[in-house]
């Protein structure tokens, strides 16, 4: 499935919720289900500091793909992190760089990616793209 397919899938999943609180309840569920980041990666070097919540992000090269592990101390943020991982993890650097993440907007959670929200999510997306850029540069040099 492409990044676009996954985004459509998520939009579909969220379309069943009429009440906003149900959307958040689902995000809490996703947050609870997210595998915790390996303790050895939950370090300050991997920390994205938001004013309100924190996100840890660790990239790992796997062949021509990048695997991300991530976690947050806030459960709603963790739920959103889970969605971002579903869309962007295990993808090639080029796919990650080119990704247009419209699903957050489409499921009505755009405010969580606005710069003013300062929960670390926007910085996490930027960081994922930066890692992708770096890996792409590296593979070009190696190639």
């Amino acid at each position, binding site marked *: 499935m492409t990044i676009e397919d996954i985004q459509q899938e998520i939009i579909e999943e969220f379309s069943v919720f009429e009440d*906003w*609180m149900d959307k*958040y*309840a689902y995000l*809490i569920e996703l947050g609870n289900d997210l595998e915790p980041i390996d303790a050895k990666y939950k370090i300050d070097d991997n920390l994205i500091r938001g*004013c*309100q*919540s*924190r996100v840890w992000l660790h990239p790992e090269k796997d062949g021509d793909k990048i695997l991300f592990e991530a976690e947050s*101390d*806030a*459960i*709603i*943020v963790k739920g959103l992190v889970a969605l971002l991982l579903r869309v962007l993890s295990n993808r090639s650097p080029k796919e990650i760089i080119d990704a247009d993440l419209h699903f957050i907007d489409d499921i009505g959670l755009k405010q969580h990616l606005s710069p003013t929200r300062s*929960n670390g999510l926007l910085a996490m997306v930027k960081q994922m793209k930066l890692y992708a850029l770096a890996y792409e540069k590296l593979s070009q040099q190696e190639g």
Partner: protein
Amino acid sequence: MSLDFRKIRKDFPILDQQVHGKPLVYLDNAATTQKPQVVLDKVEEFYLKTNANIHRGAHFMANETTEAFEEARETVRQYINAGERSEIIFTHGTTESVNLVAFSFGEAFVSEGDEIVVSELEHHANIVPWQLLCERKKATLKVLPFDENGVLKIDELDGLLSERTRLVAMNHVSNTLGTINPVDKIVEIAHKRNIPVLLDGAQGIAHYPPDVQKLDCDFYVFSGHKIYGPTGIGVLYGKRKWLDQMPPFMGGGEMISEVKFSGTTFNELPYKFEPGTPNYIGAVALGTAIDYVQSLGVDNLAVREQELLNLATAKLKSIEGLRIFGEAENKVGVISFEIEGIHSFDLGTLLDQLGVAVRTGRMCTDPIMDHFGVPGMTRASFAFYNTEEEVEALYKALIRIKGMF
């Protein structure tokens, strides 16, 4: 006098609206207060009819504006009972006022090896300017701690002071814990050693305005938007004996007496510290806001806020797993809390979804978060226009959210 607070609430049109399809419950008054219609009207009327730059033009509107600006200064003077009008400096807010003193007082009176004393309860705005000053002058910042209830360990203050202490800077009321600090004692202890005191009144001004002459503090600073006035206007009260000796903070028009390339002389107080075009409409509307709270009686408003605080405290305490931070005997209507197992960001997000506006996070008080060892808190803060029903709405929302985890 018994006030009809339901009627008074109607003075604040912003409160009558829905957010996310739910009636707005605004409990973020410590961050900023809402504005009564009279303040909104004043701003509009001024721009519609009177606007002209102050102290400059000879024309009708310039004179009217200048007069209104100076009247507002007089209103502020009376509100805090300053000795003279020229001791009231208009700034952009508390933060600028503190920075002004940290710079100008620092230039005049602080040198290498000197000490400044703050408390662990301070907002970053009453910490960072002093840290910058200490860095500039190679001075040392000392910190008065607070106890588990959020009360300053006032008995330790004298021990922190030395002959090198140049200033004590503390808040009147804590923005995070709501503690009302014993400012008279702080001044008394510091003055015994002839050390001046700056009080950050951002959270005190709306509830317990000081009589600065009786209190005898050397500086008192606050923001207009915390007392139902507009944003972008604030006040620095300073005793003339200090202000006269302090060099200007910023240069520009209005603050000068004569400008020559061979050297410039400065205007007298308060203009020496008011360079450029001030926020005169903000100042005028701040005057209106002060008139408004005085017409209701500040004491009456404080009593009402205590009622809401007591009710909310009892309600919140009945929630299992809820912990209130800061339980000083003397508090304003501020409750910071956590619910076991729920991050403050999650709590704030879900409360917002239910129409309840609170503050979450570190509230510009990292040292308080570190003291309690928490990443953040959730804060409900009350104003006199809040209602018992809103306290109930907060309680019910918290119960509902708790059930989601």
